């Protein structure tokens, strides 16, 4: 087995290992800790430059209430949900359909089609900035939810298709033969056999895609302008004042913005069951 477990008989090594692990964890979590602490700081703390120390006169919910009272964060948050949820659903549906066809059927140009889905992932987003913006302006979609939904679906489906195709291709082929011999039509094979077995893949993909889209800042800035459309990431940047920045309020808003991806992870976690196909074929 590798890595080898550190045996009980070597206490020094064990302690060193724990210490290094702890240190790594601390460095990893430091920004998060700082933001969390700042979200509890009072305005005086910020004014006096206490960014890293222990908060003086901390306020537990004050900053969080401020976020909703003084900023359009509630609107941004809603916008983000309105953009992210339909995008994720569309990506899942499209990539499952694509993946099923690419994994199970051979047809002319299949490889080329698949290569295009995969290849799209390698395009740097930045080179698409001007053309995509122009495209959206010309299509009359600029500064609407549709612009972001359309773009995210188009862009995420490439990776998602690769993911789904490979997952479906790894399902035992005899399952499909058995279904065909029983007269199950391809759409019903997809619905009754493939989709139930895809649960772990769909859950993983949903979390990934949700996080990607929710956290996107670049396209939010490129394709939106007004507060009524802006998602949370672009909205957060707006909270920075021109002269002074209420960092404690921004930190609280950031915490709020981070809730959905985390929630999503815990919601989907129970679906990440390994070995869902156990028992289908001799393993």
């Amino acid at each position: 087995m590798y890595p080898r477990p550190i045996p009980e008989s070597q206490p020094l090594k064990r302690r060193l290992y724990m210490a290094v692990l702890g240190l790594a964890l601390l460095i990893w979590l430091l920004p998060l800790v700082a933001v969390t602490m700042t979200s509890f700081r009072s305005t005086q703390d910020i004014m006096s430059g206490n960014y890293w120390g222990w908060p003086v006169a901390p306020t537990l919910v004050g900053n969080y209430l401020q976020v909703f009272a003084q900023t359009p964060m509630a609107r941004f948050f809603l916008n983000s949900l309105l953009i992210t949820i339909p995008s994720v659903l569309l990506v899942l549906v499209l990539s499952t359909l694509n993946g099923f066809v690419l994994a199970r059927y051979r047809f002319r140009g299949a490889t080329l089609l698949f290569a295009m889905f995969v290849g799209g992932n390698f395009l740097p987003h930045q080179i698409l900035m001007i053309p995509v913006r122009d495209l959206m302006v010309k299509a009359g979609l600029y500064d609407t939810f549709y612009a972001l939904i359309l773009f995210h679906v188009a862009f995420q489906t490439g990776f998602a298709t690769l993911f789904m195709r490979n997952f479906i291709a790894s399902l035992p082929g005899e399952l499909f033969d058995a279904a065909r011999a029983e007269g199950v039509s391809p759409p019903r094979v997809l619905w009754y056999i493939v989709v139930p077995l895809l649960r772990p893949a769909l859950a993983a993909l949903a979390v990934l895609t949700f996080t990607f889209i929710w956290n996107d800042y670049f396209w939010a800035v490129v394709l939106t302008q007004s507060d009524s459309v802006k998602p949370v990431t672009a909205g957060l940047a707006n909270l920075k004042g021109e002269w002074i920045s209420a960092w404690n309020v921004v930190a609280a808003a950031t915490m709020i913005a981070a809730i959905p991806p985390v929630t999503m992870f815990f919601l989907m976690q129970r679906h990440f069951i390994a070995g869902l196909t156990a028992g289908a074929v001799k393993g």
Partner: protein
Amino acid sequence: MAQSLQLHQVEKHYAGVPVLRGISLDIEEGEFVVMVGPSGCGKSTLLRAIAGLDTLSAGRMSIKGRDVTQLDPVDRGIAMVFQSYALYPHMTVAENMGFGLRMARRPQAEIDQAVQRAAGILRITDQLHKKPRQLSGGQRQRVAIGRAITRSPEIFLFDEPLSNLDAALRTQMRVELSTLHAALGATMIYVTHDQVEAMTMATRIVVLNAGLVEQVGTPLALYHQPANRFVAGFLGSPRMNFFAAEVQALGEAHAVVATPGLPPLMLGLAETTGLSVGASVTLGIRPEKLRLVDADSTQGCDFPAQVRLVEQLGRETVLYADAGPLQTQDSDSGTANVTVQLSAMSRLVPGDPIRLAFDPADAYLFAPSGKTVSVVPPGTHP
């Protein structure tokens, strides 16, 4: 009896490479036909073609007189059991077995009844609520068979269904499948590479080799009257011994055969042999037809040998022996020349000198083409 399945000049090519090279076969209702052959002989391809999972490159196929060459699997009236069981892992046993009927939009009561009936036959009624992963290999294979039974097909197709089970379970399932065949009376086509399964279960065996049918017949007919060297070597374990020989003289209905290391043998010939004097032929003798004799024996045809390896099987003993100038051809005893099966325990150890004998009437003679040219050994008419 009525025709169940007819194959007419069935061919299948993959990217120009022929896998099935013109197979014609008639299977009657209620038969248990086992297709055997070495890996890559096309037996699984043929089964998949019968199932309709693969299309034919040429030829026609009909089930119960109805041409099914172009039909989808579901319209052919077949059900297939796969080597890896291919159960739907997210469904219970009952759902697995009823899935085909559910997809055919049959009423739930009918589905339940069919599932209960199949589960009763296979004695898995108490497993119906379980998922496949909670079952053992043997139980899974039973569910897979149950799934076939619920659809009441004209023909059951089995693709090496027992090869994933351990030896004890395989023996048990073999008996159960034979019993099932007797109970259902349905036509069954079974593909395997295991000649024991073929010999024990089949009403007829089809021996396939390189995409062609070598011989079709009852298990004992194939064992005793192999049409050619391939069939003779394929059926029977341990394998038949093959010795290189030469035709020395030809008579009206017999040939004198010279085998290095053996006295000349006079063997009866079948009617038309096409043999000529000097032709290189192969002499075949089954391991159980060889026996140990004393050094001064004069009966039959005898020759000296030296024991190389002894396999004690309890009830019987298999000897692998070197037999001097005898030239064996592709024996499965490695470098040893002769395989002998004794129906008793033996105290022989490697290195012991022995004398082996056989009755020339038990010997087979194969022409250079591989065709059997000797007459059928007496007492072996099935």
